[in-house]
């Protein structure tokens, strides 16, 4: 397995408030591999910002036995000046962009190069190159107040990657943007990840953002990581309730299920009918499953809700379906589907006798 580029071990951050201690980060381990786009999701106050600010030690762990390794360097034992050098290899972008109002766009980007060893001419060239990369060449001489939110974030990104960092930390960088701009910024991050091999840590409370570009995810709640894993795995087999809630914000499966169960037809399912949730991934989607069920078992399928996500080029689908046939045939149909690598979860089994005339 690849050596993690970010390796946090046993991180605690406790803020001393007047009366009580706030455990903003509570014994967290976090490994992020080179080239990852790693999403950290959680509700407001979960401790996401505090946790990722530990990566460049803008926030120091408050416990003695924490370890912060970035790029193979133990950051906790560096002198102040060495730490500042390391920070330059970790870019950071923010929800409110944090540009300097007093400086033009070009100067804002150039600001990041103050401590670089580039000559004046090379700095100028690098700034032009960066502005081109984020598509803002024509705004070089404007000031931040003249730019839209999305444009400001592009400047933030240009500034953050000016020193060619290995890591880019994004703290809710799209939270202040409209959906369309959000997508454009996320795609830019994914693009930089691919082009420059940049490892991206994406803090967000929007599952849509995670779904779009991340390959790994951690779900955070009350200072702890309640679940971590591959995007596909998290989406197809979420374990923690919070994870399910977050996934539901994009699939709406749970809410659909609640609505479906309200329907009289579902509340009074006939014997031989079952309400099932079918989950499938990748290749299994291509099979004409529903047709097959009828052809083989004379079991009809009534699709009540469907959701299809394309995650990392893999389709992940979820269906809420009522299967109806004779009880025996319905059972056979369920077994058949399991053989087809479709995950089947029986939600309701019909108990009402079929009325005979």
């Amino acid at each position, binding site marked *: 397995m690849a050596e993690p580029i970010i390796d946090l071990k046993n991180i605690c951050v406790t803020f001393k408030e007047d009366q009580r201690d706030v455990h903003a980060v509570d014994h967290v381990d976090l490994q992020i591999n080179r080239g990852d786009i790693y999403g950290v999701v959680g509700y407001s106050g979960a401790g996401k910002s505090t946790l990722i600010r530990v990566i*460049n030690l*803008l926030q120091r762990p408050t416990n003695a036995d924490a370890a912060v390794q970035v790029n193979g360097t133990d950051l906790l034992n560096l002198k*102040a*000046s060495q*730490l*500042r*050098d*390391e*920070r*330059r290899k*970790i*870019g*950071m972008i*923010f929800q*409110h962009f*944090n*540009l*300097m*109002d*007093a*400086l033009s766009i070009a100067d804002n980007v150039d*600001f*990041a190069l*103050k*401590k670089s060893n580039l000559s004046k001419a090379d700095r100028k060239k690098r700034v032009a190159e960066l502005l081109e990369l984020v598509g803002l060449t024509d705004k070089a001489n404007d*000031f*931040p*107040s003249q730019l839209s939110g999305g444009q400001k974030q592009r400047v*933030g990104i240009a*500034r953050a990657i000016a*020193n060619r960092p290995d890591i880019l930390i994004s703290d809710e960088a799209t939270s202040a943007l409209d959906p369309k701009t959000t997508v454009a910024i996320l795609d830019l991050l994914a693009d930089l990840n691919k082009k420059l091999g940049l490892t991206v840590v994406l803090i967000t409370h929007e599952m849509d953002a995670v779904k779009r570009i991340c390959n790994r995810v951690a779900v955070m709640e009350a200072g702890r990581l309640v679940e971590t894993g591959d995007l596909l795995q998290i989406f197809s087999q979420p374990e923690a309730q919070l994870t399910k809630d977050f996934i539901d914000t994009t699939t709406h499966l749970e809410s659909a299920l609640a609505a479906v169960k309200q329907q009289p037809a579902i509340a009074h399912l006939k014997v031989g009918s079952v309400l099932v949730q079918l989950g499938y991934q990748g290749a299994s989607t291509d099979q004409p499953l529903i047709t097959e069920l009828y052809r083989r078992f004379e079991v009809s399928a009534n699709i009540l809700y469907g959701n299809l996500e394309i995650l990392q080029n893999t389709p992940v689908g979820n269906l809420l379906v009522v299967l109806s046939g004779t009880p025996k045939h319905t059972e056979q149909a369920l077994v058949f589907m399991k053989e087809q690598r479709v995950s089947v979860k029986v939600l309701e089994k019909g108990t009402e006798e079929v009325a005979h005339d």
Partner: protein
Amino acid sequence: MINFLTKIMPNVIDNWSGDNGILLGIWQTLYMTFWTTLIGGVLGLILGIALVVTDQHGILANRVVYNILDKIVNILRSIPFVILLAVAFPLTQILVGTTIGPKGALVPLILGTAPFYARQVQNTLVQVDSGVIESAEALGYNPWTIITSVYLREGLPDLIRTSVLTIISIIGLTAMAGAVGGGGLGYIAISKGYQRYQNDITLVCTLLILVLVFVIQALGDLWARKVDHR
């Protein structure tokens, strides 16, 4: 022309130049204002920056240093200037060798100005977006660079505005210092205009001070607007 002026303000023309003349008064007022602004300004700026960076949310948070500086500023600021003029006498004697004239007025003027300006600087710089400071820290900049390139740069428009306010209040203070022996337009307005019922002198001195204030205000506004891109 001269005849006309002599007619409407005889005392002003009589007292225009020479010892204790208005011309000398203008010079003395400018002298006191300039040096107080320069020395008091630099001291106040340093003190104000120190307050901001040692504040509990500052980049060099230090409770002890902050509290000491904060107390010094508070105490100095709560001494009424007229009293400061008297209290500063011995210190003035030691530092500049005299307690009279514009030079003698400088020490109390600076003591009165520096803490006042320090608070103005502090109030201005704490408003610099903490996110911008954080982004500079994330870029690996040391406190000195953050002070000079972020705080002073981002705070510049407001710093100019508060500096103008401070200079104007310094002009006010020089008039007061003048009244107790510092010289300058304030001294002339009181000793010749007010006490000898030469109202034209009072009026002209007032106008001259007003002109000075307006010029400084106008230049300050112009500059602040030029560097303000918000």
